């Protein structure tokens, strides 16, 4: 079941999607975080952000919208509270990094270089903040600038998280590759809206938010497939994964590893269940090594 995601060894291909699992402490009653391929932590910025007004979520058909807005207490808190806990659990750790500028992303990484971190995921794709996030991730030259700056800050594996809210995701993936990324992850949430017709109000205080859950899986699969064929970087695939079979579909489309996000909300043991499901699939299909699945789509 072991895979290698751009220099990050994982004991199995399953991690958590940033922002849906905090740093894992809240899920410790349901899953053993050291049994996961990795734990990807909630987006962290240099000094912390307050996030957006409530309501921050709305349920939509087979999905949900969120506009949390990267609320986080800052990198120092992560270093002193969550990272030591993850280290004690024996977890493999991917820290999801946010910033308003190339410099802030790099500063977060610099602050973490002496910490127990196995890889960084650079979030240039959050739709819920006004500066940084998706405004960077939709522009190839901004992506290149941020990733190059982060590349200077670390030798650890650098995963760049891409937004689906673009015309050509491959163009953005190429910019990340050119700037020295070790892997890409996709997809972040799709920008969307929900409206209450009776009150004529948006269901989110911020009006727009990011769509996630099973509803986005077809879009995510398509983009993983495009990137698999368009760039040579390994891919961390996500978007609506709730079962082992969902995860296998992403690997067939080219993903090396996968992340489970929104599914944690309906079943807090989703990550463990997805790992079991992949193992069962491999047993039943006579697959000896999960790496055989990568890109094995018969298309």
């Amino acid at each position, binding site marked *: 079941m072991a895979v290698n995601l751009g220099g990050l060894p994982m004991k199995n291909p399953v991690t958590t999607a940033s*922002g849906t699992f905090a740093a894992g402490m809240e*899920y410790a009653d*349901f899953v053993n975080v050291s049994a996961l391929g990795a734990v990807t932590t909630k987006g962290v910025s240099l000094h912390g952000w307050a996030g957006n007004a*409530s309501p*921050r979520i*709305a349920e939509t058909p087979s*999905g949900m919208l969120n506009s949390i807005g990267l*609320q986080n207490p800052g990198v120092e808190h992560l270093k002193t509270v969550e990272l030591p806990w993850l280290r004690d659990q024996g977890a493999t750790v991917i820290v999801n990094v946010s910033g308003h500028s190339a410099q802030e992303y790099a500063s977060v990484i610099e602050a973490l270089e002496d910490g127990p971190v196995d890889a960084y995921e650079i979030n240039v794709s959050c739709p819920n903040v006004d500066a940084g996030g998706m405004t960077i991730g939709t522009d190839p030259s901004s992506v290149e600038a941020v990733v190059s700056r982060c590349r200077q800050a670390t030798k650890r594996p650098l995963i760049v998280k891409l937004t689906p809210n673009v015309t050509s995701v491959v163009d953005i993936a190429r910019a990340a590759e050119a700037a020295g990324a070790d892997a890409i992850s996709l997809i972040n949430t799709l920008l969307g809206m929900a409206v209450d017709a009776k009150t004529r109000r948006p269901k989110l205080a911020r009006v727009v938010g990011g769509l996630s859950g*099973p509803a986005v899986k077809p879009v995510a699969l398509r983009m993983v497939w495009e990137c698999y064929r368009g760039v040579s970087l390994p891919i961390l695939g996500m978007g609506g994964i709730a079962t082992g079979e969902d995860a296998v579909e992403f690997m067939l489309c080219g993903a090396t590893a996968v992340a489970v996000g929104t599914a944690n*909300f309906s079943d807090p043991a989703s990550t463990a269940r997805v790992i079991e499901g992949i193992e069962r699939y491999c047993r039943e299909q006579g697959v000896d090594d999960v790496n055989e699945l990568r890109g094995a789509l018969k298309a």
Partner: protein
Amino acid sequence: MTLFDERARLVANAGAGPNLFVATFEAPRLAQSVQPGQFAHMQIPGMESHILRRPFSVYGRNLASQTVDILYQVVGAGTRHLSGISPRSDLAEGFGLIGPVGRGWSPPAATSRALLVGGGVGAAPLFMLAESLKGQGVPATVVLGAQTHAALACEAAYLDLLGEDDVRCATDDGSYGRPGFCTSLATEALDQAAAEGRPFDYVAVCGPEPLMRIVAQEARERGVACEVSMERRMACGVGACLSCVVETALGKKRSCVDGPVFDGSEVLW
């Protein structure tokens, strides 16, 4: 606090008023561990295209039958679907209850007299508190408000527990008790008790936010400790996703695990 996701069986699901139902679940672990004011994050079977769980406060528990009761109002797709599930159907087996979630009511140890104020289905999460206060010999009075007499679904249970002197009701339509909102009854109860020389020293409120804000304000003006139960949209229900934040004097807090019960003077309304 240890959380678990307990497979639960729906054993009763009976009408309790207009759009109101009481659902009873066989859930031994939850029945044993739930504290007053805590809630269960419910996976309702047969509506998988609705991907989020629904949070419901525990109204009552029965240690002998290992069951918990939930009083719910039909307001949308999930509660409508729930109200249609028969305990005899296959779906009845398929519930999941994450619990016991959250910080419940915590009256100060020195509480000598308590006022409980419940608006609408907000009467339910206060019932176990009333039982626990009674068990400790702390006199409690409850003020209940609802739109109509028929919607006062918890009145009988409170009458059984506390007796009629300590159950006061208001209805919006004037069909029973004091006409109008129950805030006036709450304020009167506070003043009357003070005048009698047996003032309330703890108030617990659950219901619509304006009700909680007003009662918390009245309590504060009289120097009485007050707790409120804050409802927010929830995704994870375990403290991880930050969907459910409440603005407080100490910054943003998560309603699901830092609450749902908060000190009324801490909340920035």
